[in-house]
């Protein structure tokens, strides 16, 4: 193992009592917190020593934990074209104090040919930033931008061609039986036919250490906020489908234990591979094809109208997770990273997502199809989008590797 592995203390860290705002130690720490009135809270180290393990935990083996972290904003990304340049310039000021005319003009110019939205670096980065205002925020950006009506209009202008392109390029899978079981079976069949594990097979067999680090960087854009886009759907559902989504998401969030949140387990992997696990640290490295996967989740999650699509997306995501994660874990071990920090995330997903896919298929997507039959096409559309976008991002990655190149926009340090 390299020297970057996290603290391998036994789980004597209490699972509570460390909820203190701590700025990241990385050099890319956000600069200003404009609309936060509170003085920064001093950092608190978790008390080592005699804290009890959570009751009923049989396995107090060497489960690694990360230092406590606070609410970290997305580092301000580098612009990639006229739209993101105008957007980031506007966001550096306060809403109301800025003329959005240059931003609207840049968007209007791009809208004269609204094609190739999924692979447009400028458009996808702009969408990522606009959605990020609803998640953790962006370093140095006033939170009041989140509900600025003029900025929301700009987001809508970028979203309409994005959704239109998805609807044009990703056909809605046919589904004869539209009851609970029929929809669940269709989703399982769709994901089984998607040949998803080709990237994971590659990782299991022959990916090099630098390529695996690249894969982690791509994945970090979503995985460090794993589950968040689908959580938007919870208040939009009712009854059985809502309960099913909560059952899945609670597990994603470590059942309330911050050290077991899947996003935290992913951070452990990044550190095991000597990568910066700060939220959004690599946003400038990641190409549009990868950003588009996350942006589609945000699009589906943030529009009530698209609740069927976000549910279908989650179902497909869970159904294409167990088997690939076993292969990813094999690849990680093949490269000599066999400590818990490097492998826990993958092993956890093998078991967890074998549960989640069953819940997502019948209790979530299937039950929603019966409750709101008009959503069936969108459920299937969301699932197909998950497969298409993740497939495109993976294909781009593997093409770059086949040509002995990098799949990132800039080399890793």
């Amino acid at each position, binding site marked *: 193992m390299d020297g970057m592995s996290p603290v391998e203390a036994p789980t004597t860290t209490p699972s509570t009592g460390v909820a203190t705002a701590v700025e990241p130690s990385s050099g890319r720490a956000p600069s200003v917190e404009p609309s936060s009135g509170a003085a920064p809270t001093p950092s608190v180290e978790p008390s080592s020593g005699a804290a009890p393990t959570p009751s009923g*935990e*049989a*396995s107090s083996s060497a489960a690694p934990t990360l230092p406590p972290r606070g609410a970290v904003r997305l580092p301000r990304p580098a612009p990639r074209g006229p739209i993101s340049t105008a957007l980031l310039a506007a966001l550096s000021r306060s809403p109301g104090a800025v003329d959005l005319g240059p931003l609207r003009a840049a968007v209007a110019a791009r809208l004269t040919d609204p094609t190739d939205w999924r692979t447009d670096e400028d458009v996808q980065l702009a969408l990522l930033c606009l959605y990020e205002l609803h998640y953790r925020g962006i370093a140095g950006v006033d939170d009041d931008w989140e509900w600025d009506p003029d900025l929301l209009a700009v987001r809508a202008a970028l979203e309409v061609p994005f959704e239109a392109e998805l609807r044009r390029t990703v056909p809605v899978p046919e589904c004869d039986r539209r009851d609970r*079981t029929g929809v669940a*079976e269709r989703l*399982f069949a769709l994901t*089984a036919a998607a040949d998803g594990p080709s990237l994971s097979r590659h990782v299991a067999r022959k990916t090099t250490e630098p390529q695996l680090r690249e894969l982690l960087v791509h994945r970090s854009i979503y995985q460090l906020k794993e589950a968040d886009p689908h959580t938007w759907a919870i208040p939009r559902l009712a009854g059985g489908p809502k309960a099913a989504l909560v*059952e899945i998401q*609670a*597990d994603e969030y470590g*059942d309330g234990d911050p050290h077991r949140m899947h996003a935290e387990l992913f951070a452990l992997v990044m550190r095991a591979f000597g990568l910066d696990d700060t939220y959004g640290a690599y946003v400038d490295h990641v190409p549009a094809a990868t950003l588009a996967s996350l942006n589609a989740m945000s699009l589906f999650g943030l529009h009530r109208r698209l609740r069927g699509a976000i549910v279908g997306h989650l179902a497909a995501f869970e159904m294409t*997770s*167990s*088997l690939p994660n*076993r292969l990813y874990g094999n690849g990680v071990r093949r490269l000599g990273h066999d400590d818990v920090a490097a492998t826990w995330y993958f*092993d956890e997903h*093998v*078991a*967890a*997502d*074998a*549960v989640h*896919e*069953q*819940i997502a298929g*019948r209790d979530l997507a299937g039950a929603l199809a019966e409750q709101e039959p008009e959503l069936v096409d969108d459920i299937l559309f969301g699932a197909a989008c998950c497969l298409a976008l993740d497939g495109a991002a993976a294909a781009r990655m593997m093409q770059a590797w086949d040509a002995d190149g990098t799949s990132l926009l800039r080399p890793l340090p």
Partner: protein
Amino acid sequence: MTDHGRTTDGHPSTPPRPGSIVACPDGPLLVRGDVEVLDADGRPVDKGRRTVALCRCGGSSIKPWCDGTHKVNGFSSST
């Protein structure tokens, strides 16, 4: 809260979710609620999560849990 109907200060709490097992078509047994999983010697197995999936295809590499292998080994739950 405790698992047995009383909070630590003795007040009644929400009873634990009753145990249930769902036989998933062509897949695992989904186990929810107040169910202990024991090994062959009667020792409790750490479930690791509230709801677990028990392999019934025989092909899982993480038994007793399901790892999704039933999707690629032709397992059928209908006879």
